[in-house]
Each structure stands twice: as structure tokens, then as C-alpha cells.
């Protein structure tokens, strides 16, 4: 009878203990775990969606080879200084100018754009924050080309216009035009005896510096916005000519 009297309160205490220590925390834990699962599923669905969009973007790239080439000419993946030398020389010759100097300064990395290792970019499943768009920006390598030409004002202007519309990005960092006193001596110069020293900025983006940013809008959008390539094709009319080496091999490198 005494046991019967004690059994009820013991069971009630057991109920309270079970509810407070096991069931309620367990339920909260379950809710947390379900939230984690939802998060994991959302992330998975997102990356699956991005992967399928990336496949479509790749197909779009394959079918727009000419636009890819235009863009790679405008911002190449290598310095290609030989192409610059060749093109500036041929543009100056075509403009009726004589080139008296040309030099290329060493490459400098754009200071405001950090270089990021591609393998560390993005968001791994086991944690870590998404790489910011700023951190995932590509590294731009800039370099200066100095060009000295001699000729008439009209021809210098014509060359500048041609360089401005070159299908490889460049801009004028410095331009000095002065009368060429060395030609005939001071006081005997004409308007056709001018010297122009230009300092031109060129750049390139190395391919391996292009990091993959999982949050980049390109993987969530409908495709590439190619309008800039159309602009390059319509505004930049001076074609960049490629260069071929031609015949090579001589018996004596010190004899022509």
C-alpha cells in the first residue's frame, strides 16, 4: 500500500525529468538539426543550380568564339609585348612617322586588386565564409610602353587616333610633342619637324589569376552580358595584327 502511494509521485517526477531533461532538449536539438539539413539542402540545390548554369555558360562560350577572341585581344592573358612592338611600329609607319625609340617597362601588378589563389576561393561545405567579390577580383598586370616618333603634326595626330582605337586596351599616360630641333638646328624647324614621346599604358590578366568566386553573379544569372564585346568591336577599329616568326636558324648568330 505504501509502495502504491509512493509510485504515483515517483512516476510524476520521472515524467517531469523525462520531459525537462530529455524530450524538450531533444526536440530543440531535432529542430536545430532540421534547420542544418535545410541549410545543407539549400546550399546543395544552389551549387547544383550553379553547376548546371556553368555548363550552359560554357556552351555559350564555345558558340561565341569570335567574341572570346575579341575579348582576349582587348585584355590578353599574356603580356604579348612583341605584338605591341610590331603593331605600334606598323601603325607609325602607316601614318608616315619614323620611330626613333620604343621601350617596354617591367610589369607592375595593380595595387588595389589582390591576387588570390584559385584553390582557396569559394565556400567549402565544412565551413568558412563566402569569398567576397572584392577579394575574388582578377589581378591586372599593367606595364608602360614608351614610343618616340618623328614627323608632322597631322601624322602624329593620326597615329594617336589609331592607337586610341586599337583593339587592345591602352591609354596615354604621357604625351610630349615638341619641335625637333635636332633636324635642322634651332630656329630652322617647320611644323613638320615634330617629335612625339608617348607613354602608353597596356595591361593583361593572366589566366591562372582568374579565381572562381562561387557567389559571382555570372553563375546565378542567365548568361554573359556580351554588350561590352560588341562595343569593342564597333568602337575599336584598329585591328591588332598577330605576329609570326618566319624562318629561323643560322650558323653564326653574329653574322647576318
Amino acid at each position, binding site marked *: 500500500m505504501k509502495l502504491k502511494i509512493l509510485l*504515483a509521485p515517483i*512516476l*510524476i517526477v520521472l*515524467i517531469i525529468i523525462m*520531459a525537462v531533461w*530529455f*524530450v524538450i532538449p*531533444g*526536440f530543440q*536539438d*531535432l529542430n536545430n*538539426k*532540421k534547420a542544418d*539539413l535545410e541549410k*545543407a*539542402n539549400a*546550399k*546543395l540545390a544552389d*551549387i547544383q543550380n*550553379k*553547376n548546371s548554369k556553368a555548363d550552359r*555558360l*560554357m556552351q555559350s*562560350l564555345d558558340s561565341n568564339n569570335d567574341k572570346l577572341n575579341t*575579348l*582576349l585581344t*582587348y*585584355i590578353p*592573358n599574356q603580356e604579348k609585348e612583341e605584338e605591341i612592338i610590331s603593331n605600334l611600329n606598323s601603325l607609325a609607319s602607316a601614318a608616315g612617322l619614323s620611330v626613333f625609340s620604343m621601350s617596354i617597362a617591367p610589369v607592375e601588378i595593380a595595387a588595389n586588386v589582390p591576387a588570390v589563389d*584559385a*584553390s582557396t576561393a*569559394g*565556400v*567549402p*561545405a*565544412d565551413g568558412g565564409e563566402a569569398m567576397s567579390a572584392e577579394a575574388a577580383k*582578377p589581378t591586372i598586370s599593367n606595364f608602360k610602353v614608351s614610343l618616340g616618333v618623328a614627323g608632322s603634326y597631322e601624322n602624329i595626330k593620326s597615329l*594617336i587616333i589609331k592607337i*586610341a582605337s586599337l583593339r587592345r*586596351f591602352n*591609354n*596615354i*599616360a*604621357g*604625351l*610630349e*610633342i*615638341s619641335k625637333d630641333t635636332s633636324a635642322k638646328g634651332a630656329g630652322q624647324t617647320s611644323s613638320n619637324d615634330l617629335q612625339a614621346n608617348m607613354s602608353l599604358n597596356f*595591361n593583361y590578366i593572366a*589566366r591562372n589569376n*582568374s579565381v*572562381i*568566386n562561387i557567389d559571382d553573379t555570372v*553563375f546565378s544569372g542567365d548568361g*554573359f*552580358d*556580351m554588350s*561590352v*564585346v560588341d562595343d*569593342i568591336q564597333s568602337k575599336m577599329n584598329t585591328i591588332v595584327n598577330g605576329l609570326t616568326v618566319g624562318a629561323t636558324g643560322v650558323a653564326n648568330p653574329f653574322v647576318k
Partner: protein
Amino acid sequence: MVNINLAATSYENDKRSSSYYNQGMFVIVAILVILAGAYLWIYFSVNSTVAKTAAANNQYDAEYKKFIGGNNKNVMDFQNRLTVAKELLNQKNSGYGSLPAIETAMVQGVYLNSLAFDQLKNSIATEGIADNFDMMAKQVLSFKQSAFFSGVTTGKTSLDKDGKVNFVLNLSIK
């Protein structure tokens, strides 16, 4: 005389309280069973959810490896170039516009000996020759009225042996 309680109420009360007790116990045990069942359900649900989360994370890792590997680098590379090209194409370069601006603003009879455009300073230093100071002043005014320039700073001026004015002007570009 032996006391004999003939009243039936006590027995009925005992019977009733026993019935209440049994009902109460039934409810308590039922709650206990429900709680135990709920705990078991929670336990297995948590395990199952954790397993599903782990599977989703593993699948994510595989998809992520696929994402950063393969051809996506080309996609990103192309997009990066598009973004940079857009910025560069819209970049203002005063160097190319400086010559037409100077041509337009030159006063007839005044000519330049040299000009030097500097992108960092966003200015053009000019050395010119005018027939007299009045012409030079007109040239200064013409540059000031040009939409291309924001300011004109007059530098050293001197007369050469022919009586012409050699002047230095520094033109700030807008």
C-alpha cells in the same frame, strides 16, 4: 460487545478511491509511454537528420569540387575579362582628347613650341609663342573658355630676340 461497523460507505469510498488511483496511474503511465515514445522518435529523427545532413554536405563537396575544377575557370575568366573590359572601355582618357581641344582653342597667330600631357596630374604643360602680350592674353582667355580645361596657370613669359612673347601655360583638364 464486539463493535461491528455495518456502514457500507467506507468500503464504497475505498473502492472509488482505488478506481481513481488506477485511472490516475493509467494516465501517468500513458504519459510516460508517450514521452518515452516521443524521445525515441526524436532520437531516431535526430540521427536520421544528421545522416541526411552529412550526405547533403558530402554531395555539396563533390559538386563544389566539380564547380571549382573543370571548365568553370574559363567561364570565370571570361566573366572577369568582361567586367574589367567594361570598366576600361568606360574609362576617360584625356590624352586622346587633348590635341583636338588644344587645336580648337588656339588663337590664330599663336603657336606652340611644345606640349606635354600628364595623365597623373591631368594637365597639359604648353610652351608657346605669341606676337605680343595681347595675343598671349587672348590665348589664356581662349583656354579658359574651353570646355575641356578647368583652369589655366600662367608660367614664365619672356621676349625673344625677335620681340615675340615666349610663354608657358599649364592647363588643368576637367
